[in-house]
């Protein structure tokens, strides 16, 4: 029989072997031809440069074509790229270069393939397409088509959970993994794994089925996730539903989600396991950005019921603590998130009210505060310095009794207050230097009554490959146009906020009167034309055309259920090229009646002019500055996220990591309870196409009984195998 020491060595060897396999796989990946991030080498002498050459008149032929998309590793993108490549190759390769074929027709083929289908959630879409040429040598040229498309969650991108995904799986925040495309599977499976010396080597994953809807139920996805080793397990299964508000949709709620979840866990403490199983109903919402676009609020509630158990071992029960019990809890929580150019800050507070057995009383109260800060800065080109801090504290008050597993058990194992992946409120003291859940012994027995923990991780990307080629990220035109996409959406929002101004409503209310006045004018003009038959026919035609044009705009504005701001602005414009009411005055009163001097026309033209003056005065009172600010605030997170995705995100990076943890549980007496410190170091490897992992060792500087001198921590997540 192997000793625990041998087992640990074996696990360590397996972990190193796994690491080697991944690194080898990564090398193969980097070697693949056609990656969007392939570097373009700029030579000192531009031999073969295509600058300033009209390739069509210079009789060049197309040597080769290539379509680049940063997300080619996704099967649905790859399938489209292959189809488009085949068609474009047949169209242009080996043939004389023509701009019509190489630029226009080929790009049409790419657009028809639609490299940016809608997603199952509401996002702001951006798409940039480039056709480039290079290697103009020997009468031949290589053509590259580059597609940069992304779709961003307008509010949820401010969450720290999302920033982690930006690093590990940029395809997810870029909206490429939830597209509604037939090549995109509704099934997702993300294997995960890890090691620590108490949990031992564990594996698992997250399997999700995400059709657009599950029958007639208010759920869009079903998932099972978990991890297990010979010593521990933590699994849950859930049905989840969500609502997303479009950025242009009125209202304060940006996102809501709800789930029914069943969880079961067993975590080793080194002196016996703590276990639990429960069913949870959870609802949470997120507001649209507040405070000048700098923060949004989250809120939620959960009802939870099940049992908590303790495996017989050497665990000493604290007062008012029961080892096994059925329980019920009500959890209420709230928080705020904020995202700036290079920082994300989040703070959450949760209150848990629990009872032993099915009773309407409070046997214990748990207060949890969890704050996270993430900072990233590019030192050099895309060499990111990432600093992550997390501070968590909790307090347990027990007026009745509490099941032992509800007390605070710390260590490398993380426990969360709620089951949602979208909002992770950590609920125990985490210290990577202590394996499993071994940090629990206090002056009054097993499990803390209070705790705090602080975790700091610093990583610096030494080796990396950028998601978007560096020649583009440093190109002003590319960056301007990227910003332009967000600017355009912001402008649409701005128009929407114009429509919320009371003066705008007054204008809209007067549109039927303006339409009637124009109809009356047309009637009078027709009558007058009969009286002056054969006279100034061109002026009559001009007057009638002006009335028709404006009437059509007003009719569209009145009949439309959307915001008709553009039509109204056109009608009230002072630009003679527009279909505006001023043209009616010019054509019908100044020109036509100026020639006819017919008194019967004047009252009708005056009525139109009076209404025009009133409408214009009201229209000009719309507070456009306020609307502009509101729209800008709404889009602040989206713009900041876009900048990160295009300017800071790497397709792979390898970073040395420094960690420092500090955790305390109480009450303390001597070596029981108190504060532990855990400095450590390791390596972080993030490859969007394959996997991400962190591997390291942290020392438990002032260890307590049974905690160990330190811990090897290793966690791996593999890319979605169905995508």
């Amino acid at each position, binding site marked *: 029989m192997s000793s625990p020491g041998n087992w640990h060595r074996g696990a360590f060897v397996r972990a190193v072997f796994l690491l080697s396999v991944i690194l080898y796989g990564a090398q193969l990946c980097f070697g693949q031809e056609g990656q969007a991030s392939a570097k*373009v080498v700029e030579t000192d002498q531009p031999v*073969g440069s295509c600058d300033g050459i009209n*390739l069509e008149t210079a009789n060049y032929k197309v040597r080769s074509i290539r379509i680049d998309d940063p997300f080619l590793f996704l099967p649905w993108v790859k399938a489209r790229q292959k189809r488009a490549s085949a068609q474009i190759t047949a169209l242009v390769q080996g043939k004389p270069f023509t701009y019509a074929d190489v630029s226009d027709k080929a790009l049409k083929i790419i657009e028809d393939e639609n490299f940016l289908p809608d997603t199952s959630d509401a996002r702001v879409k951006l798409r940039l397409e*480039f056709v*480039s040429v290079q290697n103009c040598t020997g009468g031949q040229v290589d053509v590259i088509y580059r597609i940069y498309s992304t779709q961003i969650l307008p509010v949820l991108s401010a969450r720290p959970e999302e920033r982690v995904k930006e690093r590990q799986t940029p395809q997810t925040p870029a909206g490429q993994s939830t597209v509604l495309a037939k090549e995109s599977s509704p099934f997702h499976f993300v294997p995960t794994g890890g090691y620590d010396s108490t949990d031992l080597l564990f594996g698992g994953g997250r399997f999700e089925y995400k059709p657009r809807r599950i029958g007639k139920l208010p759920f869009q996805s079903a998932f099972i996730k978990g991890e297990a080793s010979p010593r521990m397990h933590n699994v849950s299964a859930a049905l989840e539903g969500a609502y997303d508000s479009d950025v242009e949709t009125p209202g304060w709620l940006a996102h809501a989600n709800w789930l029914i979840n069943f969880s079961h866990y067993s975590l080793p403490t080194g002196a016996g396991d703590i276990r639990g199983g429960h069913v949870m109903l959870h609802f949470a919402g997120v507001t649209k950005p507040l405070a000048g676009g700098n923060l949004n609020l989250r809120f939620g509630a959960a009802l939870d019921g099940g049992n908590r158990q303790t495996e017989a071992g050497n665990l000493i029960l604290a007062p008012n603590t029961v080892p096994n019990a059925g329980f019920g809890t009500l959890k209420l929580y709230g928080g705020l998130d904020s995202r700036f150019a290079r920082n994300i800050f989040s703070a959450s507070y949760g209150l848990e009210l629990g009872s032993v057995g099915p009773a309407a009383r409070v046997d214990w109260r748990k207060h949890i505060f969890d704050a996270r800060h993430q900072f990233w800065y590019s030192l050099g080109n895309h060499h990111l310095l990432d600093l992550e801090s997390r501070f968590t504290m909790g307090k347990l008050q027990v007026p009745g009794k509490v099941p032992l597993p509800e007390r605070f058990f710390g260590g490398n194992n993380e426990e969360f207050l709620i089951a949602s992946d979208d909002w992770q409120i950590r609920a125990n003291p985490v210290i990577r230097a202590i394996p499993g859940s071994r940090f629990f012994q206090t002056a009054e027995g097993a499990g803390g009554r209070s705790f705090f923990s602080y975790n700091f991780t610093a990583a610096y990307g030494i080796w990396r490959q950028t998601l978007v080629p560096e020649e583009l990220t440093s190109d002003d035109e590319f960056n301007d146009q990227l*910003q*332009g996409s967000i600017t355009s959406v912001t402008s649409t929002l701005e128009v929407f906020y*114009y429509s919320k101004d009371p003066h705008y409503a007054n204008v809209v209310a007067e549109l039927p009167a303006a339409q009637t006045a124009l109809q009356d004018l047309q009637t009078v003009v027709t009558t007058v034309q009969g009286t002056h038959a054969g006279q100034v026919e061109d002026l009559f035609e001009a007057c009638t055309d002006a009335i028709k044009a404006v009437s059509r705009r007003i009719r569209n504005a009145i009949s439309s259920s959307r915001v008709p701001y553009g039509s109204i602005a056109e009608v009230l414009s002072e630009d003679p090229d527009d279909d505006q009411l001023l043209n009616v005055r010019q054509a019908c009163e100044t020109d036509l009646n100026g020639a006819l001097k017919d008194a019967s026309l004047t009252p009708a033209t005056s009525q139109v002019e009076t209404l025009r003056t009133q409408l214009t005065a009201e229209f000009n009172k719309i507070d456009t500055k306020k609307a502009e600010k509101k729209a800008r605030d709404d889009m602040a997170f989206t713009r900041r996220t876009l900048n990160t995705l295009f300017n800071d995100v790497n397709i792979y990076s390898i970073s040395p990591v420094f960690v420092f943890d500090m955790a305390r549980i109480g009450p303390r007496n001597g070596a029981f309870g108190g504060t532990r410190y855990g400095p450590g170091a390791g390596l972080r490897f993030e490859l969007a196409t394959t996997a991400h992992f962190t591997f390291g060792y942290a020392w438990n500087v002032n260890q307590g009984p049974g905690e160990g001198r330190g811990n090897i921590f290793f966690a791996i997540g593999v890319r979605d195998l169905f995508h």
Partner: protein
Amino acid sequence: MATATKSTVIKIKVNFQLNTPNGLRRVIFGLEKDTQGDVVSWAINFQLFERAKKSDPFGDPIVSLDVDVDKALNSKAEKASKGLTAPQAAFALGPAADDAKAAESGEIDQDDAQKTVQKTLKK
């Protein structure tokens, strides 16, 4: 050994997606910049999508117009490629979309609709 030269961009297309607040109308305002040697030209690819209910997919565009931008408006096209202003977005979703639809139904000429779409740049 042949070395790759820096690439030369001969076409850039930026697509601005504009949605109405009721979610029933969408305009894709595509701006294309073509460079042939030293000659630069601009074009607009205007697509209008409509749907009866917000829960329906938009499907294919009900109107798609390609407009060659007047050379005199090149500088305005260049500016618009860095983002449409609020009046431009309102015009694209309102009069430009209305006229594109009217041209499709034969109410106005295709040329007039193209002129209206191009007028977006002047807003």
